[in-house]
């Protein structure tokens, strides 16, 4: 029997890996994948908590989070395409027209 906190620690690790990816990668698409990693970490936490509280709510939440992730992915990738059209690059460092 694996204690619940193991799952939670795993979710924390995955979440931080997502944060790392978001903070340091230069490719917009990978940045975006990092956000997916973070969302998955949350899902894992939800399922673990659902198991903990013997409540199915947690599982239903995961379902909704996936819907949101899908919606974000669709819009996000479309925006990325639009960026690519205007700049011919996906390097996030180049997206810095607007600054003080």
């Amino acid at each position, binding site marked *: 029997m694996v204690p619940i906190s193991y799952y939670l620690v795993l979710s924390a690790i995955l979440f931080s890996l997502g944060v790392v990816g978001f903070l340091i990668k230069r490719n917009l698409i990978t940045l975006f994948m990092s956000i997916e990693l973070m969302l998955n970490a949350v899902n894992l936490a939800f399922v673990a908590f659902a198991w903990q509280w013997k409540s199915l*709510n947690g599982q239903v939440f995961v379902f909704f989070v996936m819907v949101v992730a899908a919606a974000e992915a669709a819009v996000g990738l479309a*925006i990325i395409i639009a960026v690519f059209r205007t*700049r011919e690059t996906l390097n996030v460092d180049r997206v810095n027209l*607007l600054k003080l």
Partner: protein
Amino acid sequence: MIQAVDYIRVLPEIVLTLFGVAIMMVEGALPPRASRKPLGWLAFVGTLAALAATVYQAGYPGMAFFGMVRVDSFSIFFHFLIAFIAALVVLSSFEYLDAQQIRGGEYYGLILFGAVGMVLMSSAVELVLIFIALEISSISTYVLAGFRRRAPSSIESSIKYFLLGSFATAFFLYGVALIFGATGSTRIYMIAETIQGGKHSAMVFTAVALMFVGIGFKIAAAPFHVWTPDVYEGAPAPVVGLMSTAPKAAAFAVLLRIFFAAATPGWFWPVWISAALSMTLGNISALVQDNVKRLLAYSSIAHAGYLLVAFAAARDIGISAAMFYTAAYALMNVGAFAVVSHFASAGERYVTLEDYAGLGRRSPVLAATLTIFLLSLIGIPITGGFFAKFYVFSAALKSNLVWLVIIAVVNSAIAAYYYLRIIVLMYMRDAREPAPTVQNVSAPLGVALALTVAATIYLGVLPGRVLDYASRGAALLVR
């Protein structure tokens, strides 16, 4: 069982969705080169219908859909505010879209859909529903920010908003997960029961911090404000008018619910610090801006700070102060951005402070209108901004937040300087050559401006009724 009254309790959402869908269907039928004004009118009617639905709904308070949404004075207040803002933004967009030659009816559709999300945020009492509603409003604003497709800056603002927004959302969601883990529920009123009954574990505190991140991002509170100036600068001006007000109002509603209805502990110092930081950073940064949209962006950060002061004040007086401030701030800011969007003209060329030189003589009415909004943002009496600030400060003082009040008063004294710069430029400087041409204000924009001016003055002179309503909502919330 679901009854008819359940549907009444989500009536504004239903109305807005139906109109949004209708717009999307008519959009397909319109020839590609035609102006999208008819869709705009349809959207305007939709927002009016939503206002009517809100008023109707006010007679049917209570929970609906198995405890998912709750209609009370609190949510009615925000429903009304958000629908009103949406109406104003729609009105001020007609001219803008024509000037920018944007022929996408989706624009209006997205405004309405976004409004659904925001309205729902303010009445939802279940964190996952709040999250979905938040996403609806976010996604539609991400896209709206990038609507000026010819301008790289607009797309850039869209992608920045999108990336940082999703990042912040992930934190919010993690916070929801943690609170679910700690209390076993995501229903705000059940969370409240659990928290009040039991001990406060570290997980609850962390959850509050994480949710504050997500909401703090939306309301542009320091240190989660960093996206604001860039995004506001690049996004189309009427959209900025929308996203600097309506989603903020909705996010404040959520924050109020989380802090006070769910009675989560330990938010005080983070809010205190965030308020002080937002005010100070926002105002100081605004002092050195040359771009009007950036300047207003920093000003909106500072205003988020004042609002958080009201949060820190807590109790029902703090909550009603926050609600009132939200309304006053939203109205004056929408108005200011409506003027900016009119003046920016095709391609958003005229957005530096220099461009406003001499506006007082070339277009006196427009300048006078902007002056009223700016005076309200400064907090000069008989405008809504004055009383809102006054009320927030006295609420804070009543909670003995002496230092925060001192910081806030000093900040509002500093803030006068940069708003005044615009007024000085408009009235006391000659226009540079060649002077930017100012088109005549079109009828819909005129109506929008008149409404916002009237509302701003109304809130300053006769705030009693609105305040009453807000305090009733606040009382319900803390109960």
